[in-house]
């Protein structure tokens, strides 16, 4: 799978209240959650982005609450992949479980707002088409790949546990 999109750049410790404020958690409607994605720190984010755009952030992306509404909101507004130096652990597992692609790379600092990235999930290579820089990212461990390959945790449970 190859994804190409424009970068929306964020800093370190972007928390789940930044991604989707608690006042919007009285619904499970993904479209509605998506409409308020990143609103607190980037007003009108969901209106500004195009399908397949990419979030790039620093350390500890998604820290804070366990709300799965956060990766759902990101996925729901059309973001194709989140690239960060590191992820908070509950956000990480939620993203894997719901099938939102996320990638950890140490060189996220070198990527700027508005750059165009091409992410190749098969080869594990990221190319910054704006400045020509290239980098590789680690594939997930085998266990997580199985869940991802199934299409998320619920598909995996169906394959493995419910016959």
């Amino acid at each position, binding site marked *: 799978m190859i994804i190409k999109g424009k970068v929306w750049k964020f800093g370190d410790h972007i928390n789940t209240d930044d991604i989707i*404020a*608690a006042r919007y*958690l009285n619904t499970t409607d993904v479209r509605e959650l998506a409409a308020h994605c990143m609103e607190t720190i980037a007003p009108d984010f969901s209106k500004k982005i195009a399908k397949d755009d990419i979030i790039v952030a620093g350390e*500890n992306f998604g820290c804070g609450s366990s709300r*799965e509404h956060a990766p759902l909101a990101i996925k729901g507004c059309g973001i194709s992949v989140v690239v960060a130096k590191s992820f908070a652990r*509950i956000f990480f597992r939620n993203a894997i479980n719901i099938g939102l692609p996320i990638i950890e790379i140490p060189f996220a600092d070198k990527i700027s707002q508005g750059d165009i990235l091409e992410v190749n999930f098969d080869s594990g290579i990221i190319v910054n088409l704006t400045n020509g820089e290239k980098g590789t990212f680690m594939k997930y461990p085998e266990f997580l790949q199985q869940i991802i390959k199934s299409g998320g945790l619920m598909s995996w449970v169906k394959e493995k546990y419910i016959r």
Partner: protein
Amino acid sequence: MTITEKILSVHAGLKEVIPGQFIEANVDLVLANDITGPLAIEEFTKLGMNKVFDPTKIVLVPDHFTPCKDIRSAEMVKVLRNFAKKYSVRFYEIGKVGIEHALLPEQGLISAGDLIIGADSHTCTYGALGAFSTGVGSTDVAFAMITGKIWLKVPPTIKFVYKGRCGKYVGGKDIILYTIGKIGVDGARYRAMEFTGEAIDGLSMDDRLTICNMAIEAGGKNGIIAPDSITEEFLLTSGANTGTFYRSDEDAEYENIIEIDAGAIEPQVSAPHLPSNAKNVREFSSVSIDQVVIGSCTNGRISDLRKAAMIAKGRSVHPEVRTIIIPATRKVYQQALREGLIDIFVESGCVISPPTCGPCLGGHMGVLGKGEVAIATTNRNFIGRMGHPESMVYLSNPEVAMASAILGKISHPDEVQK
């Protein structure tokens, strides 16, 4: 092995586990609330499931937006209520409900050595009882309700050794804020945080619950304290099975060992917008406040209310400060009534809220307007956490919060005791 590794290996049916290993472990308890539960139930229903793995091991606690703040919250709680009825799982109705992480230990649902998952990040609280306990997502809860299992990566452990004894007006909250200040909001990312040492041994269960509650604010997977006689007494009083008391081996491997002199810790305050912005309370003496919140899964237990009441007794809160007291559970509320604490609070001009997470996450019962400043005994001070994106939250222990309510600005408790 460490205590965390021992509990995980037993629940994975393995002789031993090592950090980094992926396991599928059996869970003893699965928790969800009115925000995360409906999503889990949606996933469960989408799969066409018609039974849960074990109704006695699932608990639904509508505590975040309850008593329901609006029509949509009421609809979400209805989803939980209907599910609970259909599958005979435990559900706490208004009148009996409390803040989940205060409620479950109090109700005797947690035993030492258990493995608990909850779709709430502060599920790490129960490590104070010598259990492995961690926050997960809604889909994880759906998965666990079906299979009784959770996938986990075994975390490396950081051991924290607290020497000395806590001083006056210093408790679990100050220890954890100080620690997060030292290591940062990702200082224990993906790590087990094992809290040990003389200072921890000397702390009440309420203080220990406060410490483990905030392990997530350092990015921790779980916080844990080896069970002792204080744990045993708490478990027996709550009517729980005492469970299995695990301890880390003498030769257990730690990724890091951090020593902290607890005797040197002053009451701490964390400035906006990260819990790691912790400093001595006296460094904030010029900060005026509009609101004080004393409650939450972090500091809404009876000993927290006792500490706050001791400061409030015979005094009035500042005329320009709204002070909201939230007993975390019905039992805490009743006990506070019996001890006359509620009377002290009302007399001094505080308002008492029913048990709810409410303002902690900017839900209801005390949301902040633009530019307003609060000091709260809660756990997060992210941008807009308690309301308007331009409001500010400072975090502290209950004595500091009440002293600040009385003086109208962030204050050390000894300033009102003069």
